[in-house]
């Protein structure tokens, strides 16, 4: 057993232990399991949201993009910030509606606002299909980090199996509370790892971040602006992409749903204020990618830049530490993804077809679905590790299409379910068409953004075409005047 292996195993086991322990005294009903009884304060909500947002992609992808594409990687700093700014205005309203009407999930909101279980089922299906590739990406990232960090002592498949079975266990027992407490460990490990490496490597090789940049500016200045080395990723592409991902960010069913766990609308608002500070670690990850470009140029896969550089610059036990941080960083979002995918299936799809199902049945089914989804994701991760990347892009572009339905639903009385249905079908259809025919980017713009624009137009047009008096009195939100 080498030191790296011991550190990684310890981190995975301790995290799972904390996760299981977190729910020990709670009576697990749907309310406690999915939204933590709506009792999370600012700190826990912050950790939970940061836990699900900053994933293995933060480690590997952001440094990989800084390495291989350069400037376009800055888009990650931007879209999160836009999303937080937007969330300041939207999430507190959603929270109030959620509290008042006992909503647990994103489709619950659609069902409530548009008074249509069918729309809820449709939204839940899109959500689940988008979550599965995202989950698989977390697993693949986890396996990759642990395998490299343990220097091959733990195979990627073994790492995925072990950590994911444990994740499944704490989701099963503790629900979202388990994920929030494991997020505490994750945050400490990840901030330490990123802080040490991000400040460390430029200092080790060049004597500081400014000197590293001075050298890059001298050697390859164009790498540091748009489009950098990213081909089509010019400034227009970046603008359309940050708008799409910034607006769509809270439309991920698990991120949307987590907002309901806050104890008040005020908590959510304060959380939105401090969230942008969490972007600083990403900046440090960029520094690692840029340093790697100077120190170890010519890597075939940019995503390996972070780990390759750590391997070169630090002793093996530190690699173990990075591996541990990477593993836990994948476990937290995976937990939340599994939890919400399960709840979407039981609460919105199953109960959508069988409205009479009791909360106990739905809760029991949710837990069974945790096992099913875990198994499905594991099979994908082990058998088809590389097949889902396109599905992930489609998934991200897909959930972004919920934006008009949510925002117009909140602020525009006349938005109708027909409009939202139509907008979703047209938006997602167009995105799928553009991506599958190789037309992303379309006229230099992100295909998802093109879909989103058309989607919004369709929602507005179809809603306006419906005769006002035909609609029954909406139980919906725009009617709740105080909000």
């Amino acid at each position, binding site marked *: 057993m080498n030191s790296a292996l011991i550190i990684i195993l310890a981190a995975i086991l301790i995290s799972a232990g904390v996760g299981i322990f977190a729910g020990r005294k709670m009576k697990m009903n749907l309310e406690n399991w999915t939204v933590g009884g709506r009792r999370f304060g600012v700190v826990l909500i912050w950790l939970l949201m940061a836990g699900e947002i900053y994933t293995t992609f933060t480690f590997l992808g952001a440094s990989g993009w800084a390495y291989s594409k350069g400037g376009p990687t800055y888009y990650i700093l*931007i879209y999160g*910030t*836009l999303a*937080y*700014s937007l969330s*300041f205005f939207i999430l507190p309203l959603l929270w109030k509606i959620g509290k008042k009407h006992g909503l647990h999930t994103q489709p619950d909101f659609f069902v409530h606002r548009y008074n249509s279980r069918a729309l809820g089922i449709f939204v839940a299906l899109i959500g689940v299909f988008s979550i599965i590739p995202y989950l698989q990406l977390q697993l693949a990232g986890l396996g990759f980090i642990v395998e490299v960090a343990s220097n091959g002592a733990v195979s990627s498949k073994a790492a995925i199996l072990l950590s994911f079975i444990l994740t499944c266990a704490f989701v099963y027992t503790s629900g979202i509370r388990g994920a929030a407490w494991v997020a505490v460990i994750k945050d400490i490990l990840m901030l330490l790892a990123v802080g040490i490496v991000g400040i460390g490597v430029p200092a080790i090789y060049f004597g500081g971040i400014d000197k590293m940049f001075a050298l890059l500016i001298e050697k390859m200045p164009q790498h540091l602006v748009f489009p950098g080395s990213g081909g089509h990723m010019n400034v227009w592409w970046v603008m359309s992409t*940050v708008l799409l991902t910034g607006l769509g960010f809270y439309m991920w069913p698990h991120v949307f749903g987590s907002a309901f766990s806050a104890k008040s609308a005020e908590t959510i*608002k304060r959380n939105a204020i401090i969230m942008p500070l969490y972007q600083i670690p990403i900046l440090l990850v960029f520094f690692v990618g840029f340093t790697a470009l100077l120190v170890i140029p010519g890597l075939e896969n940019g995503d390996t830049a972070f780990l390759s550089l750590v391997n070169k610059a630090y002793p093996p036990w530190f690699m173990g530490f990075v591996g541990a941080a990477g593993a836990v960083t994948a476990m937290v979002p995976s937990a939340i993804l599994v939890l919400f995918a399960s709840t979407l299936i039981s609460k919105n799809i199953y109960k959508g077809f069988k409205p009479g199902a009791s909360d106990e049945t739905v809760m029991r089914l949710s837990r069974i679905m945790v096992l099913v989804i875990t198994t499905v994701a594991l099979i994908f991760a082990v058998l088809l590790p590389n097949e889902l990347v396109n599905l992930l892009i489609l998934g991200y572009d897909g959930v972004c299409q919920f934006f008009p339905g949510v925002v117009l639903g909140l602020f525009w009385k006349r938005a109708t379910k027909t409009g939202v249905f139509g907008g979703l079908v047209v938006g997602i259809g167009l995105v799928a068409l553009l991506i599958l025919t190789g037309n992303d980017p379309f006229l230099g713009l992100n295909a998802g953004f093109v879909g989103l624009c058309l989607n919004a137009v369709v929602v507005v047009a179809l809603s306006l075409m419906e005769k006002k008096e035909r609609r029954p009195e909406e139980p919906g939100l725009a009617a709740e005047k105080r909000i």
Partner: protein
Amino acid sequence: MPKGTKLALILGAIPFLTLVFALPLVNRIHPVILGLPFLLFWILAWVMLTPVLLFAAYKLEKKYNPPQEGEDR
């Protein structure tokens, strides 16, 4: 729309102006500030200023909007 909400929305729109629509104007390396290429410095500066803007928005809402009944702290 209450005055506080209006002011808050104006502040909340600033990151969208600076971090999206201003990008074509700041897509450059020079001047290098604090060792960072100008584009990265610009983005970072507005990322860091966003919490300040949102905090101001929060305070303005508190100041100008009437307290809502039944509000949980």
